[in-house]
């Protein structure tokens, strides 16, 4: 009986010779991440436990990306606390001010997370790095404190679900649409405690940006991690960025899966998740006449340069409807600079978009784009829970950058085909 890629990576971080789903293990961690919301609790727990030095200053990553640029005095205090800890500990990968990118776009871009790594982050979307063929999972602040202290953490080896994607994706259908469709099929707890492994001919050709969007939303189906077997596309992405060795793992042919689900991507249209669950998914053709007040293009799900290129291609020589606030959030400083270089920012500004600094703010209803009572947004983000982006009586519809851009122009949820 063989092993899945998830089991193999976990096993490689223990002294065990064999590993099976359901087993509780203690594993060594390659990278541990915290942000301005979750790190303060972790640091306090670390100090309370008598921690003096983090286990490895090159393996602890701190990114102040949620309530930054500091939105108020309380959030400034939280950032200052993390800043002081990072300085004291001489944390190599500490990002604040103009170096801040949204963590799950920033870490892959900087080559901090690599294939074969075991990554934990006190942020649920840490599962994003599975796109690179790493085992990456979101944990809480106490878990982060434990890793900062010992370099290790307990894990239950998850069962794996296999998603085999076939068929040629139609125009305007992206990785975001695939993952929304999957969450719509299996529900917000459809992969609870499990690994979601994405495979099949369509995945083999899927660009890295799309893979990152898909792995990012594995948590929205309750999964422990999402994962792609690394291949030539992974190598092309990782090779120029890596500053240390990395390893490709893949599942054995006789690996055991709890479920195998096949999806024909050729039959999909762009997908929209209606309020108030990411699983409340319909095709965009069934989302007509839903007027919007805001369109948000960005986040750890869809704020990469490829996403901005798609949105710009649609918004070029067009304007957002006068009733819509269009907000574009380049996810990292490098993406922002590249978007300026390619003229994308000018296209967005000519379309009356507000350009936000890289920040998680609007996505989690923190700042930089909050919804009022009764307002409705289409967003390329990952969650549409009650009150997620602002007032408890506001609504969020999740979609791809293409749908968000088209919707901004028409003032209602729309497919780019309608333009």
């Amino acid at each position, binding site marked *: 009986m063989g092993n899945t890629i998830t089991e193999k990576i976990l096993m490689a971080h223990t002294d065990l010779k064999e590993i099976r789903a359901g087993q*509780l293990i203690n594993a060594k961690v390659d990278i541990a991440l915290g942000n301005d*919301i*979750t790190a*303060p*609790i972790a640091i*306090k*727990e670390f100090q*309370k*436990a*008598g921690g003096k030095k983090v286990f490895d200053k090159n393996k602890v990553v701190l990114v102040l990306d*949620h*309530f930054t640029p500091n*939105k*108020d005095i*309380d*959030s400034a205090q*939280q950032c200052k606390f993390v800043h002081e800890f990072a300085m004291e500990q001489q944390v190599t990968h500490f990002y604040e001010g103009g170096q801040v990118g949204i963590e799950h776009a920033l870490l892959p871009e900087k080559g901090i997370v690599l294939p074969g790594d075991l990554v934990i*982050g*006190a*942020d*649920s979307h*840490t599962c994003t790095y599975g796109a690179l063929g790493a085992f990456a999972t*979101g*944990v*809480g*602040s*106490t*878990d982060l*404190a*434990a890793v900062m*202290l*010992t370099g290790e953490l*307990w894990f239950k080896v998850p069962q794996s679900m296999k998603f085999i994607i076939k068929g040629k994706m139609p125009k305007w259908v992206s990785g975001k649409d695939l993952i929304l469709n999957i969450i719509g099929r299996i529900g*917000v*707890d459809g992969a*609870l*405690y499990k690994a979601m492994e994405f495979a099949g001919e369509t995945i083999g050709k899927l660009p890295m940006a799309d893979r990152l969007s898909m792995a990012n939303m594995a*948590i929205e189906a*309750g999964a*422990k991690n999402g994962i792609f077997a690394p291949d030539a596309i992974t190598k092309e992405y990782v090779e120029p960025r890596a500053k240390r060795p990395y390893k490709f793992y893949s599942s054995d042919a006789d690996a055991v899966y709890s479920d195998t689900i096949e999806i024909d991507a050729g039959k999909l249209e762009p997908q929209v998740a209606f309020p108030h*669950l990411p699983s409340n998914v319909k095709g965009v053709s069934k989302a007509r006449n839903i007027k919007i007040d805001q369109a948000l293009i960005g986040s750890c799900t869809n704020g990469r340069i490829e996403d901005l290129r798609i949105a710009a291609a649609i918004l070029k020589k067009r304007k957002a409807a006068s009733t819509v606030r269009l907000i574009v959030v380049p996810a990292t400083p490098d993406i922002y600079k590249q978007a300026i270089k390619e003229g994308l920012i000018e296209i967005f500004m000519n379309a009356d978009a507000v350009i936000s600094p890289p920040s998680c703010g609007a996505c*989690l*209803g*923190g700042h930089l784009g909050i919804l009022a009572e009764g307002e409705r947004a289409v967003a390329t983000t990952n*969650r549409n*829970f*009650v*009150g*997620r982006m602002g007032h*408890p009586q506001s609504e969020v519809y999740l979609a791809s950058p293409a749908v968000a851009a088209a919707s901004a122009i028409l003032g209602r949820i729309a497919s780019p085909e309608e333009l």
Partner: protein
Amino acid sequence: MILKGKVWKFGDNIDTDAIIPARYLTTSDPQELAKHCMEDADPAFITKMKPGDIIVGGENFGCGSSREHAPIAIKAAGVSCVVAKSFARIFYRNSFNMGLPIFESRELMGAIKDGDEISLDSAKGIITVTKGNKIFSSNSIPPFMEQLISDGGLMKHIGKKRKESRV
């Protein structure tokens, strides 16, 4: 330990944004977070509940973000434990790690209404609905998790292990 209190029922997929909305995450002070516990699921919850009360949830309780502020807010509000049909993964981990007692029971939800009193024997996993003396058992907890609870959470567990390895 016997936990006894009135129950407050919530539905399926109660997410961490509903338990403690992100707008309050500019602090990690438990007492501040407690003021907004369950606010976007039931704005009146914090004024209605009494210390020792019990939250009963449906499927996938605590889904969404990894914020440990969610179990912290529940614990600091004085809720003695949460019983749900199932828990989201990170919330489950966080609760054991920081010491909020949680129990899985698929049957309890259907047998109670808001305000009913239940008692819970945490060691035996036995839940008793006071009125009518209906008895349910919660799912068993893996031995490692029991160890976490008896040591007082993950950090204390690690502290104990480190001490032992130095002896």
